[in-house]
């Protein structure tokens, strides 16, 4: 095995200090690096700044555990399961975290600019929206944070055509964490299904952690390089963690877990002691990733969630 292999505990300790600016892969209820998110909570990280487009339970869990200082995102929710995340909602209603709203395209373009090594990127989106007019994260707070963009956005008339465009500042997180179905032992990443903005998150970030269902021989993953999306040398740490996206789905491997979502949603709705009890049971309680999988229902549950290879998901999952 390569020298990039880490445990969850090692990867978090080595690459994600308090106050880090991070991006987490996935979208709503698909392929979030949940095992690493739980490890961030176990190591009691504080002051994280999180960039994203449409996160879900990953960000909501971090906010509920008190790990987050600021979010720069477009949407928080898991659509039919948890919309919006109640910890997210409570934090913004009570003013306990800083935030800035972009659209999904805008949030993605900030990562695209960061990925291309550009300081900003023009777009036609968000014109006429309060996302252009209303800024949440104040100029004073921005100037106090060396890693923050100096302002939320700007706009100008195109020097060539005169058309109005919005200018979005690049996002370059310190660390991107991507959950992949497969990674080569030197770090080459293969994502199955929708890629969301994961490849841009990885390209924009200074460091990249990949948690993976399977770590395979590098020469195996290189037999079909056109299917790979992150080159090996951009990956700093590889964490093998089967079912590491649970309770979110991992295309081609397993589906989302509606029963776990339901109990999360109830704990997050109640907050306080109920959410603390959730963390005790599901984050602090399990001694390792294997005992977490036992707790969610063990072999029978995992087989229920296991994807039908003809579909990429499990038609057996009970969604009501």
């Amino acid at each position, binding site marked *: 095995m390569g020298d990039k292999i880490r445990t969850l505990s090692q990867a978090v300790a080595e690459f994600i200090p308090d106050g880090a600016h991070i991006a987490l892969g*996935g*979208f*709503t*209820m*698909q392929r979030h690096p949940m095992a690493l998110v739980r490890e961030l909570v176990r190591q009691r990280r504080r002051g994280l700044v999180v960039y994203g*487009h*449409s996160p879900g339970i990953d960000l909501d869990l971090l906010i509920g555990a008190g790990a987050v200082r600021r979010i720069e*995102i*477009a*949407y928080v*929710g898991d*659509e*039919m*399961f948890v919309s*919006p995340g109640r910890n*997210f*909602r409570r934090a*913004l*209603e009570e*003013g306990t975290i800083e935030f800035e*709203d*972009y*659209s*999904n*395209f*805008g949030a*993605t*373009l900030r990562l*695209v600019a960061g990925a291309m090594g550009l300081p900003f990127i023009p777009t*036609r*989106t*968000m*014109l*006429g*929206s*309060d*996302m252009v007019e*209303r800024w*949440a994260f104040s100029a004073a707070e921005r100037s106090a944070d060396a890693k923050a963009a100096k302002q939320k956005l700007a*706009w100008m008339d195109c020097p060539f055509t005169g*058309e*109005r*465009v919005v200018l979005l500042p690049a996002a370059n997180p310190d660390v991107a964490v991507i959950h992949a179905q497969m990674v080569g032992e030197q770090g080459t990443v293969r994502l199955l*299904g*929708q*890629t*969301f*903005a994961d*490849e*841009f998150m990885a390209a924009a970030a200074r460091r990249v952690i990949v948690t993976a269902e399977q770590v395979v021989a590098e020469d195996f993953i290189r037999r079909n390089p056109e299917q790979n999306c992150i080159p090996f040398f951009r990956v700093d740490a590889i964490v093998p963690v089967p079912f590491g996206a649970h309770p979110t*789905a991992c*295309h081609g491997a397993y*589906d*989302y877990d509606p029963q776990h979502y339901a109990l999360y949603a109830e704990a997050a709705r109640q907050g306080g002691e109920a959410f603390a009890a959730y963390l005790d049971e599901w984050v602090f309680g399990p001694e390792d990733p294997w005992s977490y999988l036992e707790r969610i229902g063990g072999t029978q549950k995992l087989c229920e969630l296991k*994807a039908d290879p003809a*579909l*990429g*998901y499990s038609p057996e999952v009970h*969604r*009501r």
Partner: protein
Amino acid sequence: MTTYTTAELMVTRAAKEIGDGEVVFVGTGLPMIAAMLAKRTHAPHSVIVFEAGTVDSALLHLPASVGDSRCVYGASTCGGLFDVFALLLQRGFIDVGFLGGAQVDRYGNLNSTVIGDYLQPQVRLPGSGGAGDIACLSKRTVVIMRHERRRFVERVDYRTSPGWVDGPGGRERAGLGRGGPAAVITNMAVLQFDEVSRQMVLASHHPGVSLEDIRANTGFPLETAGATETEPPLAAEIQLLHEAIDPEGLFLRG
């Protein structure tokens, strides 16, 4: 006589907004069901696009999110947000986009961000997601939402998704080169926009809903002259919804 729920009436009516061969940008829930119904009825050549990265999915099973693996099956292409937002939506290839919101005003501006003050909210909502992008960059949009006085307001608390902005010429002044809302489909009525004033007008009321009910649930003046009754769903449409599109009752639960 066909029996149907209000939600079923809404999706069958919404499906009619999709023309055959059009490229349709839809989100989770009723818009997804409307687009799936259109594809199985009058618009078999329409193309369904999901913001998380898939184009023309086969949709054997109803997705619970646009990021669901169920969006991938049978798709023409499968990529990410950039592929759909930049290369299709911003490039100008989306004919109709579907939107929802917690509040709408007479010009079809939508709020899905916050109720109350932006910085000190009474209720914080999920945020734009792709809605603001769809509103800005589609050739036209269709809104599906509940018809209540607290939702049909004089002024939205936050303009997440621009409609006709502040009336005639509003989109042009904002720098938007195309688009704008074409219809609002609610649990009570179908509303359209006057081509001159850009204000919402009543196009049809659903069977059993009176003009008084609609006015009482609309927080701004509404022109109702010329309104007809909404066509009820056909039995074959209801059968498709129950048996093929949402047999689990995920979004059309009784």
